[in-house]
């Protein structure tokens, strides 16, 4: 059987950089290829070649054994290639059906009119095919992230795509949504689609993919059958050096209490949360999306309303109630989405880093900022966190995801915080940066910082947390310590079985 999609000897040169160097991959119908590699390894460039956005200097693409010329996105469209993007693009106020057919709306009887009923019918068919219960007449903005993604997949299906490319599809999904995504991918596979699945999560690759292909520095460094490879081997290919497996780690003993939350309540989100955060520990906050994790953090920091509850801070001057604004001023908060509220993307690294602590650089009656000191701080942070950037004047937007996240960390560390709150600290970050961030969190906790960690990545939780509080329905449903913190228990606790007894 010939490959459905074949890319052969593809090279792409950008001024000064060889983004792709003689890369060949193939995918057969009914097969899932896992494409992995750190950010910047060339995955996006390779996919942009398929999408008709870049023309390669060398090599070619063949579908069903025939060469195809992909000069523009429309060519990819007509070649039956569809992309499911990491960040979904849609029209929030239009319906699901309209979004699905936005570029191919069936026309009605009257010229230039749209046959909405036909659009809805075809949308329904496509959604049914995926086993989804989303209504075609629902407005797009009312859907969850996962549902929106299903709509995007349904669009690909409805347009008859038989090569579907998933670009980090699971990074913003809850555990449950991930499960249904996997089910859909399997369904598409069973229907004979050729699928390329790009992900940072090796467990997903193991679970879903038949074959894997690893890119590093624009070269294909390894490929083969997933069944015949170990996870360590893939990590080695990705990073380019051997990494040791997760060693059994010592959980820290909790220090003195630092932050005490009692009866935190916010209508519809939080139903009375009690929590204690101690010095020198990593407290994991575990739960499904919508369990109130992010809401809890935003409420206690005064970024969202807080209707009831008390916050007590224990510092050198003893225990005392603390206002939300003051807590915000004393806390480092790495937000869930660095692009929305973590970074000033258009600004230079040094301005990002000094933003949390401007008072530190002020001198004189005129309150003039000392840009020299700001730059110096930034430069030392760049060194300390090994942020890869030409220098401190680089715009944050020009950095890779991992380095952007390090800038977010740098900006908070600059405040030398007692409390560090992390909300999905490694989302969209490559393997290397992920490990560096993990090490950083460990060292901070060792030095006495109180870390509150929210993550959807079960491995990260197991690797980092000393204690875990499980949130369910806006309240703490369970707490785990020591060896109880493992993947099985966490999964069970989140969906409401097992560890709930604890």
């Amino acid at each position, binding site marked *: 059987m010939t490959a459905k999609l074949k890319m052969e000897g593809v090279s792409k040169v950008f001024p000064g950089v060889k983004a792709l160097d003689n890369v060949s991959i193939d995918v057969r119908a009914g097969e899932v290829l896992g494409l992995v590699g750190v*950010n910047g390894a060339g995955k996006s460039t390779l996919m942009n070649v398929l999408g008709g956005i870049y023309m390669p200097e060398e090599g070619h693409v063949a579908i069903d054994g025939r060469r195809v010329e992909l000069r523009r996105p429309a060519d990819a469209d007509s070649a039956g290639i569809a992309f499911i993007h990491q960040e979904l693009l849609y029209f929030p106020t239009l319906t699901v059906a309209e979004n699905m057919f936005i570029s191919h709306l069936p026309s009605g009887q009257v010229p230039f009119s749209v046959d909405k009923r036909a659009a809805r019918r075809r949308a329904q068919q496509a959604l049914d095919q995926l086993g989804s219960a989303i209504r075609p007449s629902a407005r797009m903005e009312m859907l969850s992230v996962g549902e929106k993604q299903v709509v995007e997949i349904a669009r690909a299906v409805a347009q008859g795509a038989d090569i579907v490319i998933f670009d980090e599809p699971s990074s913003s999904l809850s555990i449950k949504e991930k499960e249904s995504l996997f089910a859909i991918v399997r369904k598409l596979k069973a229907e004979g689609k050729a699928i390329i699945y790009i992900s940072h999560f090796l467990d997903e690759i193991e679970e879903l993919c038949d074959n894997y292909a690893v890119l590093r520095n624009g070269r294909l460094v390894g490929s083969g059958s997933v069944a015949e490879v170990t996870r360590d081997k893939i990590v080695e290919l990705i990073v380019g050096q051997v990494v040791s497996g997760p060693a059994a780690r010592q959980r820290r003993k909790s220090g003195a209490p630092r932050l005490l939350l009692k009866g935190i309540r916010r209508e519809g989100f939080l139903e009375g949360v009690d929590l204690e955060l101690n010095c020198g520990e990593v407290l994991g906050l575990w739960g499904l999306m919508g369990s109130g994790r992010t809401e809890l953090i935003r409420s206690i920091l005064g970024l969202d309303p807080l209707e009831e509850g008390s916050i007590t801070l224990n510092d050198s001057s003893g225990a005392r109630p603390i206002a939300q604004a003051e807590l915000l001023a004393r806390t480092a908060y790495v*937000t869930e989405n660095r692009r929305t509220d973590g970074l000033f993307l258009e600004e230079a690294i040094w301005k990002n880093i000094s933003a949390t602590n401007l008072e530190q650089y002020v001198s004189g009656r005129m309150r003039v900022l000392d840009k020299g000191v700001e730059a110096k701080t930034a430069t030392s942070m760049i060194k300390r966190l090994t942020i890869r950037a030409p220098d401190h004047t680089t715009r944050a937007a020009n950095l890779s995801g991992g380095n952007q996240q390090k800038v977010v960390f740098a900006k908070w560390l600059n405040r030398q915080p007692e409390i560090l709150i992390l909300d999905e600290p490694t989302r969209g970050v490559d393997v290397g940066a992920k490990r560096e961030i993990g090490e950083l969190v460990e060292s901070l906790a060792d030095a006495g910082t109180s870390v509150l960690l929210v993550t959807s990545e079960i491995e990260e939780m197991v690797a980092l947390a000393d204690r875990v509080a499980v949130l369910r329905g806006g309240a703490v449903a369970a707490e785990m310590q020591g060896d109880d913190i493992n993947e099985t228990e966490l999964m069970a606790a989140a969906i409401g079985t097992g560890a709930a007894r604890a």
Partner: protein
Amino acid sequence: MSDASRSLVTRDSSVPRLWHWFSARPALLPVVLSVVMAVIFALTVPNFADLRNIMNIFGQLGFLGFLCIGMTYVMVAGGIDLSSYTVVSAAAVVGATVMVATETTLPGCFLMLLIGCVFGAINGVAVAYLRMIPFIVTLSTMVVAEGFAIWFTQAQSVYGLPDAFIDTFSARVFPMTLGITARPVGTPVAGIMVLMVALALGFVLSRTIYGRRIYLTGANEETARVSGIKVRQVKFATYVVAGAMAGITAMILTADLGTATTAMVRDVRLMDIIAATVIGGASLRGGKGSILGTMFGLLFLTMLSNAFNLLGVSPFIAMVIKGTVLVAVIGLDVLRTK
């Protein structure tokens, strides 16, 4: 860490160095534009480089300069103020009425400044604290201020201002001579005032902690908030600054015209104010702009209009050029941020 991961950082750092350098200095564009224009006009337009005309241009900067400074503050913080030009009239008619009635200068001046600030504060509260959309809020204030001015005066111009007031603000000081100019030409107080205010507020915006908070708020309000910047206070303050600038404009214009009217500055001038600010490097999306750039943007527009008037070329061609330059500058801004 590994060499492998180090090499994957700056894959698109292939932009020419000059472009990069230029992009990092958005205030350079209006400066270059103004200098080039000045040279061309000096060589081709009779009387353009005459000291009398230079002082004339300098004085004209005082007409819109303050409003441009205010607009820069608001736009850097991510907002827009459409109301400032009618607030000028509202402040002017009240202040002038008081001046005429009391035959004094100071209370009237104070009132002009106060009314400007009050309108600014109304904008500020609505935008920053009630989270209303700046465009709609200031559009409404614009109408309110205009209506107020007409109602207050019954559309009659206020006349008979104290000479002390007129003489102070429309005065020309430090007479100078240049080259063969026969009579010494005085420097307009309006120009000196706008220069001083531009230097002071430019310093605050570019060098102090207050200015940085404004930039960061405009760059990304949410990030600024999480970073501990009191974004509501910051936004409020920028509108009050814009209002105060309208108050000062009221003084300058009232003195210059010798009367306060209900329509001292018309809506077409709003376009000039925004154009000067945008040519000066500000972005409607916030986080960008500088007083230096804005003042040169305004200088560019003023020189353009002046040169066309001197040449007797249709002023409507100047409008076409202004609009074209504005679009080009916005286009350049888009390229720059890509």
